[in-house]
């Protein structure tokens, strides 16, 4: 329990404790897995909207359930890939010119540990989604043969005021908890890649900064990021 507290509130002490030890990927993978499951559950909850959208087209609930399962699988894999593997890869690549030393498994482990705040953010975002779901108005699709109609209906649902409000809230949660994760990742990169504080900040803040800019740009472009926390 102390380890978890150290990870969240005193990451320097947490990673100091790991100094000299072989980085294990079990716990980081478990953390990433929990985050992936939460994202998958959120995506499946959203499938309820799609089920209502396609119900009038005579497809019954099967179409909505299928889309829900596909969305959940996508969100699960997307979280593992994007939030753990890709971010760790980005940290590792950025740290190379900064004379980073250490294996990629160490970077993966440090990135996985740093995902704990983001998983908390995902859980908060999922709870928020439950309060917004009943308020989202779902357009009706009667002709699933027409892709333009489906596209228009999905766009309309995304532009629903409740959906936009949820998107904004979800984005803000993601950014705030991403800052917390970034803080842990800085200390993690110092441990995993043997970097000084300055280079560790550069290693983490460049990819995270780009990611945050991407999230904000997507939000202001009125898009919707399905794999978000």
């Amino acid at each position, binding site marked *: 329990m102390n380890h978890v507290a150290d990870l*969240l*509130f*005193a*990451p*320097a*002490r947490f990673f100091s404790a790991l100094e000299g030890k072989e980085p294990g990927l079990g716990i980081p993978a478990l953390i990433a897995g929990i985050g992936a499951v939460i994202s998958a559950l959120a995506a499946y909850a959203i499938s309820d909207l799609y089920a209502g959208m396609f119900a*009038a087209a005579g497809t019954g609930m099967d179409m909505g359930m299928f889309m829900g399962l596909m969305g959940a699988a996508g969100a699960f894999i997307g979280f593992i890939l994007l939030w753990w593997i890709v971010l760790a890869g980005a940290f590792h690549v950025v740290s190379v010119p900064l004379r980073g030393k250490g294996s990629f498994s160490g970077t993966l482990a440090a990135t996985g540990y740093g995902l704990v*705040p983001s998983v908390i953010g995902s859980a*908060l975002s999922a709870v*928020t989604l439950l*309060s*917004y779901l009943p*308020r989202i*108005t*779902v*357009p*009706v699709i*009667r002709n699933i043969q027409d892709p*333009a*109609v489906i596209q*228009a209906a999905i766009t*309309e*649902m995304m*532009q*629903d*005021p*409740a959906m*936009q*409000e949820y998107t904004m*809230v979800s984005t*803000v*949660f993601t950014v*705030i*908890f991403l*800052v*917390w994760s970034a*803080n842990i990742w800085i*200390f993690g990169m110092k441990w995993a890649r043997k970097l000084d504080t300055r280079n560790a900040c550069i290693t983490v803040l460049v990819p995270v900064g780009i990611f945050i800019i991407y999230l904000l740009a997507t939000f202001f472009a009125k898009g919707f990021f399905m794999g978000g926390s």
Partner: protein
Amino acid sequence: MTVYRVFPFLLAVLLLFLPAAAAEQSQVAAAQVMVTNVTLNPQVFMVGDSGTITVEIINNGAQSVAIRRATLYDEKIRVESRAYETTMYLGAGNRMTFTFTVSAPVPEGIYYPVFSLDFRDAGYLRYPVKLRVQDQPLTVAVLSRPDTFTDGKKEKVEILVGNPRDNAVSGVTVYPVGEGIDATPTRHFIGLLAPDKSQNVAFQITPGKSAVLEFHVDYYNGINPHTETIRVPIDVGKSKVQAEPILSNLRVEWSGTYYTLTGDVTNAGLEPANAVVITMGQGAVPQDPYRQYAIGTLQPDDFSGFEVTFTVDGDRTSVPVVITHKDADGNLYTTTYPVDIPAKGTRKPAAGTEESPLPVIAGVIVACAAVIGGIVWYSWRKR
């Protein structure tokens, strides 16, 4: 001496009997004159008609005959032309015709005006001419017509013209007359109509309002013009067979930005409904993607689904759906159908119209940001 005394006596006797012999000879010659042909135009008169009677005579004898006067007379049949008063000779084997103009202001029946030929030297010839007066006009009947006329819609009206008379009539023309009525063709020319024959003519009638449509049949009996008329009242209303689109299976749903009306439109009439288009009427504002829904042709008893999208002005609870279709002539028909829409209270409220969780969430966000800020600061301070 005796012969001289007898000769004057014989001469006197001869002179006494010579004229008598000549008169007997003229009578024999006149007896050879006979009527060979009588022609009436028209063959059968109508009451009041004028016409001509032409009598042809022939002299079958070997001597010419002197004719002093030829005339026609009757107590009831009026002879309009004068008698032939000039003395003329009808040579042996020759023919001669006499034409008289007559009128028949008499009731229906058979009359016998007498043709009279007076010979100068030998009495006269009397010949009754048979003249029929038939008070029987052409018969006009409506063969087919729609039960109800529709304003501006072309309908077919078929007319039968029959000739029950014993003679043919000529120049038969049929044409419709009526206020605000457009007819195609404007008139039909039949021409000669033989006795006991009939002829069908058809008109395409387009009424502009309720009126009385008259079909006039003009014709000539000889030189006499006659007209028969049949009246067809036209009540402009709803046709019994016209296409009748009706809506069913209606469903109105609010999709957040507009209403979606779906349903079926069925042609409950007996004629095809062409170019069927469905849109919203006053009080509703059509919206994309289905401002209008074009269905096309609906055969009788056929139906089709449709979908229109719209918003409403104010707090209306009912909006009119407008169905337009055309008949085979291109006339446009509009049917309005009121449709109830869900009351505002039953719509899913948009964000901000009910108590939004945003203030609470914003508080959570601020708290999280503050805590995370504190954690970050704390983690660096501990270093």
